[in-house]
């Protein structure tokens, strides 16, 4: 029995769970982007396009669509790293079931994160197809936004999972969404360039992984890639998610190996 397949085995559980709910998530991952695109792209966009000075004459729809792509990845990944992780420890105790078998803590973590990565690919593919249908993807490079959303997802799912494996109750998750995820959603370049933010907040925005994801997705769907800044975005996202995974590993060990 080779140990390199161990991290893949927990996927069986998450896929079995996903098979029960995928229709619902598939529908919501189509409806959500369409609603946002209608509201911001067309509704707000009509207003903005007349007055704003968006770069290179792009429409607001083209500007906001890749931002929403990255921001949606962040939201889904944050959810997947919070309640499901605490549940697998405390309520369904599925992590404990896994650890009674040959699986190790590292496999349990890797398997769960791999499932979240898979969810990113699924959701982003649907989303990208939807915004392409609205004419908001200008370049075939846009397809590369899908792996970028995987990195955005891990950059959130891994540190949140570290917290989910540390905390005793789910009370903090709502606060994380309200005071962490929602402000990031609004102020990390999704809806307007962060240069418009007051000085301090602009710096804060630079530090968030979401901004790096938004800007990289935007460069790709617009087909206007700046290699230097793209490399920085990529390195930042890889670094952030790697660090998150390491912290999550130690948090998992602390909670599960006693």
């Amino acid at each position: 029995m080779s140990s390199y397949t161990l991290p893949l085995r927990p996927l069986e559980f998450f896929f079995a769970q996903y098979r029960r709910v995928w229709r619902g998530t598939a529908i919501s991952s189509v409806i959500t982007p369409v609603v946002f695109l209608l509201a911001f792209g067309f509704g707000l966009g009509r207003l903005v396009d007349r007055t704003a000075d968006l770069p290179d004459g792009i429409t607001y729809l083209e500007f906001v669509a890749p931002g929403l792509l990255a921001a949606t990845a962040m939201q889904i990944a944050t959810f997947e790293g919070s309640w499901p992780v605490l549940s697998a420890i405390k309520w369904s105790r599925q992590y404990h079931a896994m650890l009674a078998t040959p699986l190790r803590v590292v496999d349990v973590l890797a398997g769960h994160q791999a499932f979240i990565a898979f969810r990113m690919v699924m959701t982003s593919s649907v989303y990208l197809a939807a915004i392409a249908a609205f004419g908001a993807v200008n370049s075939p490079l846009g397809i590369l936004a899908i792996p970028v959303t995987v990195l955005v997802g891990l950059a959130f799912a891994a540190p949140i999972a570290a917290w989910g494996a540390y905390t005793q109750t789910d009370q903090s998750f709502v606060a994380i969404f309200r005071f962490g995820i929602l402000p990031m959603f609004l102020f990390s370049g999704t809806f307007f360039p962060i240069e418009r933010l007051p000085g301090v907040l602009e710096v804060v925005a630079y530090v968030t992984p979401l901004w790096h994801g938004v800007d990289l997705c935007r460069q790709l769907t617009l087909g206007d890639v700046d290699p230097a800044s793209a490399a920085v975005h990529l390195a930042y996202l890889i670094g952030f998610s790697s660090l998150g995974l390491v912290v999550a590993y130690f948090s998992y060990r602390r909670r599960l190996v006693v």
Partner: protein
Amino acid sequence: MVTAGTEDALIHARGLVKRFGELVAVDAVDFDLKRGEAFGFLGPNGAGKTSTMRMIGCVSPVTDGTLRVLGLDPAKDGVEIRGRLGVVPQEDSLDLELTVRENIVVYGRYFGLPRSVLKQRADELLEFVELSDRADDRVEPLSGGMKRRLTIARSLINEPEVLLLDEPTTGLDPQARHVVWDRLYRLKRRGVTLLLTTHYMDEAEQLCDRLVVMDKGRIVAEGSPRELIERYSTREVVELRFADDDGQPDDLGYWTDGLVTRVEPLPDRVLLYTDSGDAAAHGIHERGLVPDSVLVRRSTLEDVFLHLTGRTLIE
């Protein structure tokens, strides 16, 4: 002379210790589990039974001492050991949203078993635990006894060499307990090695060939249920109950002198240990002591535990 060495024992522990900070949960215990036997840890909650089980199951690191499971070292060979064990944990870890069959198949995949094998084994195991007709139902609405049986079926998916059962019938009603015992008894007859913890003396008597009595992290006695009763108790016990606390005489020694081996006054009753319960009950009556009720019964492991620790198993 040939003695049973480490290599013959499926599980071998010497001076095994588990500490959580200052708390010593398992305090230098020694035991050996032989192939094909049903071995039990009997003791009250907090005796260190679950901590011992978790170390054997390679999910909790050994603090000190020697532990060999299937001849291997849990610190180094956890993956291989766990692949050859079956575990029925104290708290259910079934996924309530998945079906009965999915729970088994998904678990089997953790062992890397191919789907074709799992399909067949899942059918056989569900038949064994009498859940075939619920195979495609979600787990959530199942009764506690059914969930326990499903957990047992799941634990057998990798055809384990040893089955670890932590409090297998805690929380079940009497009828469900008997169904679980019946299934475990069948496994035992098929030659599956069982290692179980329990705080029910009837469970230990029903299932265990050999057991250790644990109290406060230590093993206080070891033997077969019959041996333990012979060694630490008498054949029979007379239970005397009095109308109220004041009705219980202070000078029990006077009333029972020469009639019984040992007297054990408890808050709610008095136990008289003797090889002939009827003779003792009769003798006390003749001396003029009239309790509210008199019950003559056989000695159980409960009496063994009481004698060894001065406390009852379930408090």
